[in-house]
Structures are given as structure tokens and as C-alpha cells.
């Protein structure tokens, strides 16, 4: 059993290295040009956003509609750092750290009163908090208000790639740990979890804060990669975009979030040329997915190599 787990992990590691190498080759060969590189970075940032919200919604079962609020904290921490204090890659790192600290603090302040609420009430409360964070940033001097910040490019796709890898490892390991199991039990049945002696509030807060910190990393990378940040890029509709990624991939499925982030980002890019029908097609695609796969593309399942092997074996068996 343990050996098999190790094998699975090695295969994942192999996949990470392989995809990194392939992407590098494709970029240096010019097959992935600058336009595609931008798409690639968007996909990476969306993946980080999706898995961070998945930790809160999918694993712990707490409905949050304020995730853009934590993304904007990361974006502006990094933006202000790059603009006013330290430039270049060190500035990005400092910005990421500052963003994580601030968003952890804000998430704690948000979580303690709101996580006593459940379901729809929690969603409304977090939605409000997300907007409050945005309005505060809109009215601050150092953030340059509604005009936003124009930044030098400081984040390469390499950084985003490894950030995706690190954030995924953090979330996956958390999900598999005893703490993660406690979070899942809160999602499954809060009263039963409480009856087992689990401090449900504490785990809800833990997942919420961790998710907020990871979202701020995505925000910081966004600021460093895409030149311009403005408060109106991070309204509640951005929170809903992130929610769509999670629901679309399957709540609780990390590999599902990967697939949905990739597909949705690609879909958005393809549709950009047809701006007038873009939202219609996008909306239709969502409706179709929800009708045919109501629990998302993967539901709560994960794609694994052992699962893939099983499917392959079955296919072979059927062929014979």
C-alpha cells in the first residue's frame, strides 16, 4: 500500500518535470509564442485560485463568495511593493509574503464572525466582506485609487509554474493530513464532527485562512505578470469566476480544478475574438456542463495514475 503511494507520487513528480521540460522546449522553439505564454500564465493563476477556493468550498464545505477580496490583497501587496519599495523578482517574493500575511490577518477577522453562519448566509456575508476589501483599496492613497497601478513586468511563467506546483502540494497534503480529514468531516456532517470532539469552528477558520493566503499568492503573481491592476478587476464577479472554476471541475477535486481552469481559460481566449457572443457561448457552456455533469467534471474524484491504470486494464480486458 505504502509503496504504491510512493509510486503514485513519483509518477506525479515525473509528470511535473516532464511538463516543465516540454513547455520550456515549446517556448524556446517558438511554438508557444507570447500570446500563448500569456494564456499559459492565466491558466496557472486560475489554477491557484481554483484550488485555494476548493480548499474552502470543496474540502471544508464552507461557501465563500469573497475570494476576489483575497486575490486583490495579494495583487496590491505585490503591486505596491514593486512600485514603491523593491523592484524585480525580490519585490515579487516580498510582495507575495506581505500579501499572505495581510490576507491571513484579514481572513481571520472575516472568518471569526462569519464562519458561525452556514450556507447561503455565509455566502452573502463573505460576498460583502470581499467588496469591503475592494472598496478600502479603492480609497487608499498608496494604491492610487480607481486608476490602479501600472507595473513593470516582474513575473515569468517559470515562477507561475512552480507556484502552481507548490500551492498544489500544500493543498493536497493538507487535504490528506489528519487536519484535512477533520475539515472533510466538517463538510460531511458538522454535528457528527462536533460529536467526535472536532473543533469545527477552528477547522473552518484554518481552511478559510489557508485558502485566502493561497489566493493572495495568485493575486501577487497576477500583478507581477500582467502590468495593470485596478480595483474594478476584482469585483464580486471575479469571485464568481473563481467559484465557476471550482464547481465546473468538481467540488473537492483538485485535479478537477486543474482541468476546469485550463478549459475555461482556453475557452475564454478562443472566445475573445468573438466578443459580442462571448458571454453567451460561455454561459451556454456552463449550462451544458451543469446539466450533464451536475457535480462538475470529476465530481469528488481525483485523476490518479492508479485509476488510469485500472481504466487501461479494463479497456484491454474488453478488447480481448
Amino acid at each position, binding site marked *: 500500500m505504502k509503496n504504491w503511494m510512493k509510486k503514485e507520487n513519483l509518477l506525479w513528480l515525473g509528470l511535473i518535470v516532464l511538463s516543465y521540460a516540454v513547455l520550456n522546449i515549446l517556448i524556446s522553439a517558438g511554438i508557444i509564442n507570447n500570446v500563448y505564454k500569456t494564456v499559459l500564465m492565466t491558466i496557472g493563476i486560475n489554477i491557484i485560485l481554483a484550488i485555494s477556493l476548493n480548499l474552502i468550498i470543496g474540502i471544508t464545505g464552507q461557501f465563500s463568495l469573497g475570494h476576489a477580496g483575497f486575490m486583490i490583497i495579494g495583487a496590491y501587496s505585490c503591486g505596491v511593493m514593486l512600485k514603491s519599495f523593491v523592484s524585480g523578482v525580490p519585490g515579487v517574493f516580498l510582495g507575495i509574503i506581505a500579501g499572505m500575511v495581510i490576507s491571513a490577518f484579514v481572513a481571520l477577522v472575516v472568518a471569526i464572525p462569519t464562519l458561525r453562519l452556514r450556507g447561503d448566509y455565509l455566502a452573502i456575508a463573505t460576498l460583502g466582506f470581499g467588496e469591503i476589501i475592494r472598496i478600502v483599496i479603492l480609497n487608499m492613497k498608496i494604491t492610487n485609487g480607481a486608476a490602479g497601478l501600472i507595473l513593470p513586468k516582474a513575473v515569468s511563467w517559470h515562477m507561475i509554474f512552480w507556484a502552481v506546483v507548490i500551492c498544489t502540494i500544500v493543498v493536497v497534503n493538507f487535504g490528506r493530513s*489528519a487536519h484535512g*480529514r*477533520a475539515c*472533510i*468531516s466538517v463538510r*460531511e*456532517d458538522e*454535528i*457528527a*464532527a*462536533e*460529536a*467526535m*470532539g*472536532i*473543533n469545527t469552528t477552528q477547522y473552518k477558520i484554518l481552511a478559510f485562512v489557508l485558502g485566502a493566503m493561497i489566493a493572495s499568492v495568485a493575486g501577487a503573481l497576477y500583478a507581477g505578470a500582467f502590468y495593470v491592476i485596478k480595483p474594478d478587476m476584482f469585483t464580486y464577479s471575479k469571485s464568481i469566476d473563481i467559484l465557476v472554476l471550482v464547481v465546473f471541475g468538481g467540488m*473537492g477535486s483538485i485535479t478537477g480544478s486543474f482541468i476546469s481552469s485550463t478549459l475555461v481559460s482556453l475557452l475564454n481566449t478562443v472566445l475573445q475574438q468573438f466578443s459580442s457572443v462571448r458571454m453567451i457561448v460561455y454561459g451556454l457552456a456552463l449550462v451544458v456542463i451543469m446539466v450533464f455533469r451536475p457535480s462538475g467534471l470529476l465530481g*469528488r474524484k481525483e485523476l490518479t495514475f492508479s485509476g488510469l491504470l485500472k481504466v487501461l486494464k479494463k479497456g484491454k480486458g474488453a478488447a480481448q
Partner: protein
Amino acid sequence: MLIVKDLSVHYGVIQALKQVSVEVHEGEIVALIGANGAGKTTLLHAISGLVKHEGDILFLGNSLSKADSRAIVAAGITQVPEGRRIFPDMSVTENLLMGAYLRKDKAGIEEDMKMVFERFPRLQERKKQLAGTLSGGEQQMLAMGRALMAKPKLLLLDEPSMGLSPLLVKEIFSIITSINEQGTTVLLVEQNARMALQIADRAYVMETGKIVLSGTGEELSASEDIKKAYLGG
């Protein structure tokens, strides 16, 4: 072992428990019987620390009135909630591990896991299966196994027979007796008064938030009032 004194619980303006006093001695099976809405589950929830209450609850000489649900589990009281409330998207093994959540002794946990599997061989056969895919009876066994993983001194069982076939009800009750014989005290809430009174050393009858009768299992089984009200003539 457990002394509940003048316990009252309010849900808003409704008073669900009116100064209820109950005692459970070490080694006993005590049954709480009564109709829907009598307050049986509320009493168990109050003992588990899941609802706010007035009055005093003493366990092994210590007051639990101010303790939260974690401290109560740690003190040795575990509840098997009504309707099983297993974690459906977790495997059987993971469900059992959640029961041992507050324990730190890995060797002891493993040993108790074996013990639970010995007691419920059907759980062992399905240990990797998702709990939500188990049958009702198996889920009840899982809920009981999960509670036993906390190594309780006092086990609170809320309607273990609910929604089970008569044959399974018999099996569950014989399991309760054997758990009790191995040293765990049991406080049992049941609608199935006949079965409950058969295995209980003592029993309390509840009606609209009050204890209206108490006595040994045999006494209550023989009582005319009880026969009429709960045992069907």
C-alpha cells in the same frame, strides 16, 4: 457515573426539557423511552454538550455543565447520533479514524480498529468502501464502531434501531448488550420500547420534556400504563 440534575433546555420560546433528572450507574444499560418530541434526543445532546442548557451534569464526579463537546468526548462520553450521521464521502476506515480523533496513542488506535473489525466483520469486508454506499444496518454498525474508537466510558446511543429491519434490530441490540458486557456503560434512547426494555437494567419514560416514570426494565415492561402507551396493549 452520570448524574443529570434539574436539566432544562430551551429552543427559543419552546422549553424542550423541564428540569429533568437522570442517573446512570457504572456498567448499566439505561434506556430512555418516549414518543416523538418528548425530549429524548435533546437530553442526549445536552449531555454531549451540543445544546445550551441549565442545570447540572456530573460525570465521574466532575461537572460538565461548562464543558464543550470536545472536553466531554475527552472525558469519556461519546454519542452515536440519531440517523447514524456517518461521513458518507469518507471510507469506512477513515470514518473509524475520525472517531479516534482526540486520541494520540497510535498503537491503541490500531488495536481498537482491530477490535471494531472483529466485532463488525462486515465493516472489515468493506473497509475501503465509501461509507455512503453501505446499507442502513452497516451504517449503524459503522456509527457505533466510530463511537467505540473514542474509547468511551459511557456510550450514548440515539435510536439505533431507526429504519432497520426487525432482524437487524435484533442484531444491533445484541451488539449493544455485548458492548455493555465488555465494560462500556450505555445510555440508550429508543422508540422501540419493547426491545429497549428487554436489554435495559433501568429505564426512564419521557413525555413532553419531563420524566414521567422510571424503574427497572422488567418493572416497566410489566406496567399496565407502559403496555398501553408504548408496547401496543
